[in-house]
């Protein structure tokens, strides 16, 4: 599979990632050659070791580390797995491959044969389920301080983008405004994308693929000089990294449009501060300046001077009664410090009072024109978003 790398960015990324891995594990090797019991010092990937950094506006890992020691009975297996996984990733980088996490699982999975103290042959697999090897990948990420995208590990593509911009990827130049009815699938290695001509003024991220398609068909992005992105539900890492780069490198404001329910708000939260389970990625994946455009509770019910976007009748037709699970989720969100701003408190309070939620499609059914030409532009122009 070894081939000449097609593009400079790729070559550079590989060189950088391989160097980091080599240096990080060189330490382990040196310890062993010096006769020192080797250990991998890895930041803890637990909820307890996750905290919100209000300054950076993202979730970060705390100071807790685990020392994974070879000579500790409980950790020896994981120690072996980490070395094994690192060596496979390292080799793949050097040999110009793009393994998927499933590939890594298969490449590393084999049987260790050994003898017990009675001399009987015994067998043990390096890992059993992919969940086990995926977890080891996360350890390698945390230990090296790199994301799997940095190590050119592929995963399933999920995110899409269209808009007024040209990019270069894999040596090809792609015009994101010439994708027909389709869209550009955001690749697993978003850091290998080069931004060329940008003629957009903001980024609109929509939670739902269906709404993305509708806005694309009416060429929303063309009319309003935008980049239109979707993560199709819970966004994958590549989409989040891509959005982050748009915001960080091109200084484009990012607006996020989700359903008006706790699930939608959590998706916004993942874009903005990172995911709780994988806080180590936030430094590279989160977009702390992302703005929640809607749909907000005040859009539905109005607030003091604000007139609601829905009439009394529309509310009756479109509103869905919140389920117990939604209520529980909302209560959960209230505990997170980044949801404790006055505006968010107001949202959650209204939600818990009305016990009502609304899908974006409801706004679209009020007329696509309403969504594309009234609701979104008006909210952006009037600054009616939540930070």
């Amino acid at each position: 599979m070894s081939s000449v790398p097609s593009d400079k960015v790729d070559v550079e990324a590989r060189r950088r990632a391989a160097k980091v891995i080599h240096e990080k594990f060189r330490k382990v090797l040196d310890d062993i050659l010096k006769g020192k019991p080797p250990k991998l010092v890895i930041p803890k990937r637990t909820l307890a070791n996750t905290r919100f950094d209000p300054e950076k506006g993202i979730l970060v890992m705390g100071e807790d580390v685990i020392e994974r020691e070879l000579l500790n009975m409980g950790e020896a297996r994981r120690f072996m797995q980490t070395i094994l996984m690192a060596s496979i990733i390292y080799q793949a980088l050097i040999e110009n491959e793009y393994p998927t996490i499933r590939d890594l699982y298969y490449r590393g999975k084999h049987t260790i044969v050994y003898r017990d103290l009675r001399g009987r042959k015994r067998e043990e697999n390096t890992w059993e389920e992919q969940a086990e090897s995926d977890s080891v990948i996360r350890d390698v990420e945390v230990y090296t301080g790199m994301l799997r995208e940095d190590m050119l590990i592929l995963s399933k593509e999920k995110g899409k983008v269209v808009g007024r911009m040209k990019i270069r990827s894999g040596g090809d130049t792609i015009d994101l405004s010439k994708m027909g009815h389709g869209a550009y699938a955001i690749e697993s290695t978003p850091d290998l994308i080069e931004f060329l001509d940008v003629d957009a003024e903001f980024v609109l991220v929509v939670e739902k693929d269906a709404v993305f398609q509708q806005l694309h068909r009416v060429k929303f992005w063309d009319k309003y000089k935008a980049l239109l992105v979707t993560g199709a539900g819970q966004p994958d890492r590549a989409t989040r990294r891509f959005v982050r780069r748009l915001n960080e490198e091109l200084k484009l404001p990012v607006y996020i449009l989700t359903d008006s329910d706790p699930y939608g708000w959590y998706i916004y939260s993942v874009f903005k501060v990172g995911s709780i389970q994988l806080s180590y990625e936030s430094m590279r994946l989160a977009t702390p300046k992302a703005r929640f455009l809607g749909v907000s509770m005040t859009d539905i019910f109005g607030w003091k001077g604000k007139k609601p976007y829905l009439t009394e009748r529309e509310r009756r037709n479109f509103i869905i009664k919140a389920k117990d699970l939604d209520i529980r989720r909302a209560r959960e969100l209230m505990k997170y410090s980044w949801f404790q701003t006055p505006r968010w408190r107001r949202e959650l309070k209204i939600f818990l009072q009305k016990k009502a939620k609304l899908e974006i499609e409801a706004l679209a059914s009020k007329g696509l024109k309403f969504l594309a030409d009234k609701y979104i532009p008006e909210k952006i122009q009037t600054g009616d978003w939540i930070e």
Partner: protein
Amino acid sequence: MARASSVAKQTGKTGEARKGERYREMSVAEFFARNRELAGFSNPTRALYQTVRELVENALDATDTHGILPFIQVSITYDEELEAKHGNAKKWFRVTVEDNGIGVPPTVIANAFGRVLFSSKYVIRQTRGMYGLGVKAAVLYGQMTAGKPVEVYSSIGNSEYVYSRKLYIDTEKNEPRIVERGQWRKRSGWHGTRVTITLEGDWSRAKSRILEYIKRTAIIAPYAEIVFETPEGQVFVFPRLTNKMPPPPKEAKPHPHGIDVNQMKLLLQSTNARTLLQVLVTEFQSVGKITAEKFLKQVGIPPDIKPRDLLRKEYNDLLVRLVDSMKSYRGFRAPKSEHLSPIGEDLIKLGLKRMFEPEWVDAVTRPPRAYAGHSFIVEVGIAYGGALEPVQEPLLLRYANKIPLLYEEREDVAYKVVSNINWKIYRVEFPAPIAVLVHIASTKIPYKGVGKESISDVPEIESEIRTAVQEVARRLRLFLGRKAREAEARRKIITIAKYIPEIARGLAMLAKPPEKWSPPSEDEERRLMEALIKLVSRNIEIPEIPGVDHEDPEKVVRSVIENIHLE
């Protein structure tokens, strides 16, 4: 011997009297003939076992008690003559036991085997039998079931002749009836006794018990050579493991705490002392003149009263008061124990080692103690692991004066103690491969019944057994603790060492810088592997266990990954 004999006869009568008024007119021999279960002859299975046991114990008493290294041959054969007569039933047996002991003088043979309660053993001394009844019970049982006389061949050490007697016991007269006698000049220096008893038995049922009995005898007497031949012609040989024997027990005078009215009467009859004071000083142990005077003064009995006078009817109350006071008086010294013959820690360990090849064995001989005027010594040995099978409760090997006790285990004080020990404290988790040997040596073993199979729970004995078991068990705990740590270290080695080849291979790959990368050579992997083997073995310590070869951790590490090739 003459005195012992007269004493014994007397005891027999008084003993009989104590059994109950109904039997007053019956001879002792007849009494035992009718109540044979009391002596352990309740059925053909038990009778065969009991016969072997009585003869083997007599044989051992004739040897080790007299400082002779025992050589004992036991054989059980089918009696073909009786078989033919009774329609070929395989239930007639000849039990023969031969020893190399002191022998029985020709003049004594008849009484020794043919008169119930005649015994050389009726002195206060720790011997295996005490009632002098066992072998006669076997003879009686034999003549009642098979109708054949007991056959005895014997020679004493300095005699030029071997004498033989075949005799029955006349149960009504309690007398031996000799039916055949013989005499041969000796061609060798042989001395000892060979006894054959013919009886009805059940070998198929008794076999396992008898084998167990012989085995346990070999455990407690590793200085004896024992040969056992079964009716099928199977021969079991337990060779002598050592020439070291426990010192023979010595005769001792009774302790005042251990006397009863009957014994006191016998003593007063036979004593040469002229006054009660002299009786106390000369016929009892642990009583000096000053102590005796002080005692008599305190209880208010005149010291110069004549022994014979005390036997008169009008003094009966005084005699009873005297004996009661002797039993309870605190001023006497504790009973002596020099005459006791414990087996000793070394011999116990030796015997257990041979039988179970245990991983660990230890034993303790406790200092002498006394109960009711009888001194006793408790010895305990524990064996662990090896050929022992894991069991739900400790395999208990009970001995009383070196006799293995096989029946009535749950009635025994040793069982009570051992089963109530919290073995968890000593790191013993059942099922466990553990055997506990308990030996009680005493001038008087407090058996529960005439069958002599279980010992009563006398508090002093119970507490000594507990202390002894706990003492050895504490040492066992140390061993098991080390063993557990050792096993833990080994487990650790396996858990870690099995990953060495995988880690070496991965690190060899990661060790090559990206700009100059090439697949690592086998040499490079090998070098890393060696470094890892050294590292792991240096950092995991295998605790040493005394008596067990200490293994080099590096060897253990290598054994885990030896000859294993990675895919």
